[in-house]
């Protein structure tokens, strides 16, 4: 009976492709990996007005007459990928005028027409934390964006919190990238920490002045964009996304976190395996990078693929990131697969490119899994998400198709070639002397 139903409406669908924006769409027959909840061998995903209306076993499905039914048998559906650290969009953060620039917003620098955003869509990425570089102790504010199609301005990509404010974190870094030793930049690790502490203490004093003013405008301290931002950090309203590689640098970040109480995500953490217990005890999430070989700089020589597996055993919340341009957004799933190669469970690896990152970005209630009422951000894959043979076939953001590999234009983005896009912009000051492999 159901089969008969499906057949009839599939025919109708192709006969009348434009039946209203508000109609329901059901993707039926694929293996569905909802991330939260068990995989369904042959499932359905019902979408309405950009949200998930239902998910379940295809054999239990009964759709209303106006439901558009799309047969995706043999395919795999999972949530749209969430990248917790990327440099897509050709943005930039602070300049060379100083090592701590919390007032700088990457929001003001992104190019929404950048082909790098389309490449991320081609990789199945639907939500991104766009970061400024790591050449500063603090290179500025990060931005969480949805990779919606046809954006003309950055406003079209923003994600708003319950207070109506666009969402983002703040980028910090320690270790060698930000140690330039000139122009006010630190030359040592101790100086790096001291500069950050001094700035946070200023922010604490600034916050105290505001508190004492008690809403009396005449008593308020003059506005200071940098300190205002750091007060948000101290108040837990803005998460610190901290670039750090070496074991001692990781511990320094944890020490600062303890002193100032900010909310923290550890990024890259090449040597996490050396201080895994300390990371677990601090109860901070990590966002890991996966690289094909160690090195490239001293602090990444001890990078290990087993980071994820070691931290998983200790119950740490583990996300992954592309750090695009460092790894290619189009093959983001590969990072999760390499974590499995080194001992992580498949479940947690897939969780790491979806739900874990959603939580890391404070978006766990909206995205990251296929659950009723969540945003209809999902991807259709040709097979096992963790296989080298698999392609991302389609990407959907809020129910809308933003990438379709079978279309010529999208295929070009997915594989490359003439006209595949503008040059990749390299995030400024990521690393002195780094010119994207063109050196």
């Amino acid at each position, binding site marked *: 009976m159901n089969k008969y139903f499906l057949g009839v409406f599939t025919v109708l669908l192709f006969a009348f492709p434009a039946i209203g924006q508000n109609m329901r769409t059901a993707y039926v027959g694929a293996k569905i990996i909802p991330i939260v909840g068990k995989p369904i061998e042959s499932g359905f995903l019902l979408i309405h007005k950009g949200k998930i209306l239902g998910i379940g076993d295809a054999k239990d499905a009964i759709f209303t007459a106006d439901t558009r039914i799309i047969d995706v048998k043999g395919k795999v559906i999972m949530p749209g990928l969430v990248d917790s650290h990327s440099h897509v969009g050709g943005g930039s953060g602070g300049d060379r005028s100083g090592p701590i620039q919390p007032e700088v917003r990457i929001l003001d620098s992104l190019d929404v027409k950048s082909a790098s955003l389309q490449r991320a869509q081609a990789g199945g990425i639907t939500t991104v934390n766009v970061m400024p570089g790591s050449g500063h102790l603090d290179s500025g504010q990060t931005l969480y964006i949805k990779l919606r199609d046809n954006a003309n301005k950055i406003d079209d990509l923003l994600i708003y919190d319950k207070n109506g404010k666009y969402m983002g974190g703040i980028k910090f870094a320690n270790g060698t990238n930000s140690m330039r030793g000139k122009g006010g930049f630190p030359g040592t690790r101790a100086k790096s920490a001291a500069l950050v502490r001094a700035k946070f203490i200023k922010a604490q004093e600034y916050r105290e002045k505001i508190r004492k003013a008690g809403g009396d405008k005449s008593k308020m301290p003059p506005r200071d964009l940098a300190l205002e931002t750091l007060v948000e950090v101290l108040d837990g309203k803005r998460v610190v996304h901290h670039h750090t590689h070496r074991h001692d640098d990781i511990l320094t970040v944890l020490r600062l976190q303890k002193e100032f109480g900010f909310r923290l995500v550890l990024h890259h953490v090449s040597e996490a395996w050396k201080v895994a217990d300390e990371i677990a005890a601090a109860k901070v999430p990590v966002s890991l990078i996966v690289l094909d070989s160690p090195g490239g700089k001293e602090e990444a020589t001890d990078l290990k693929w087993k980071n994820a597996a070691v931290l998983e055993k200790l119950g740490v919340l583990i996300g992954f990131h592309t750090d695009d341009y460092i790894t*290619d957004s189009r093959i983001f799933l590969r990072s999760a697969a390499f974590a499995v190669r080194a001992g992580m469970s498949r479940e947690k690896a897939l969780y790491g490119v979806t739900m874990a990152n959603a939580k890391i970005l404070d978006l766990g209630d909206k995205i990251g899994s296929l659950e009723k009422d969540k945003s209809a951000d999902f991807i259709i894959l040709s097979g096992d998400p963790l296989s080298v043979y698999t392609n991302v076939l389609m990407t959907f953001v809020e129910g809308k198709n933003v990438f379709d590999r079978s279309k010529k234009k999208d295929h070009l983005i997915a594989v490359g*070639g003439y006209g595949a896009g503008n040059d990749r912009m390299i995030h400024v000051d990521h690393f002195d002397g780094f010119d994207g492999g063109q050196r």
Partner: protein
Amino acid sequence: MKKHLSFINNRLPHFVKHFSIASFLLLAPFPFASNAQVAIKGETIYTMAGNAIKNGIVLTDKGRITAVGSASNVAIPSGYKIVSARVVIPGLIDAHSVVGLAGWLNQSFDQMQVERSAPMQPELRAIDSYNAREPLIKWIRSLGVTTIHTGHGPAALISGQTMIAKTNGDTVDQATIVQTAMIAATLGQRASGRGGKSPGTAAKQASMLRGMLIKAQSYGKKKGFSRNLRLEMMKRVIDREIPLLITVHRARDIMTALRIAKEFNIKIVLDGVSEAQSVINEIKASGFPVILHPTMYRAGGETKSLSMETASKLKKAGIPFAIQSGYEGYVPKTRVVLFEAGLTLAYGMKFRDALASITIDAAKILGMDKRIGSIAVGKDADLALYDGDPFEYATHCTGTIINGKVVSKTIR
């Protein structure tokens, strides 16, 4: 026939075998010489010299392969050390790398792949810069790479020589199998002089390279000439003794390379070739082989039009090619050809063709296919072992064998 060989070995009195092994251990100047007899059992063996063998056995003795076949045809003689794996393939060949010259610290003291004092320095020997103990070499070896074509990088009009080495050995002499393999030249963005120095344009690059080749044509012909290391090397290119490895990305530069090759009747290998697809007929007609950029190479500048489908297009066109790890300026400091070839499987390549691009086809381009690149009797006993499809992300390399010796046991 294969059986016969192992029979001979079987018939040797025990003390003779033990004596010979012991004497190797005591007297051998190089560790390679001390290789015991090893039998490798594989549930699947991709020999790259015929069909895959199920439940196969490879016998090795004194660093060479002495027998290959199914377990029903090849018996393991007594005294052989037995190594087992689910999948056995030929040791991987990285057709173009800079590891050994470029180190993982990425500091000026461990970056020996380019010397900028002059735009053309073919006299620079790779062997004089090769660090056999570079950790990146150990890294790629642990993933199955047994041979690298490495040397001076794509960063000057002529940056120097390249060499071929096994990823084993503590010294350059132990590692090297070809001292001078090719001369590394580059046309395009990366060959431009810095700080206003020549060459500053594509046309200038071509004219300087042609000028050098013209000088080399007459080198040594005058009576009482004095030796010139630079021209001496270029003369070997003119004499077709060694090929010019020309790194080119833009279609324009690919055509320049082909034009110069024709003018001087020299052998070249096209390297990189991001825009190969747009001049694929011309490349095919030239007959020159291609060492293709890594599949995951970053698009930007002169590589902005690269495509992950180029490997499959070259295959379809019948152009001989290999896939390389290439040169990286940051992280990852080296790519791994196993992964670069593997990714092509999602972009139109077939398993066997992808594997050939980092084994037998790479060996052919390097002129080493009589010795390496497939699992066949008489060839070097270089093998890579895996616990599944070697290209699959979650598969592990379980061992690497070079010259019959297990050089890596790390499960990675």
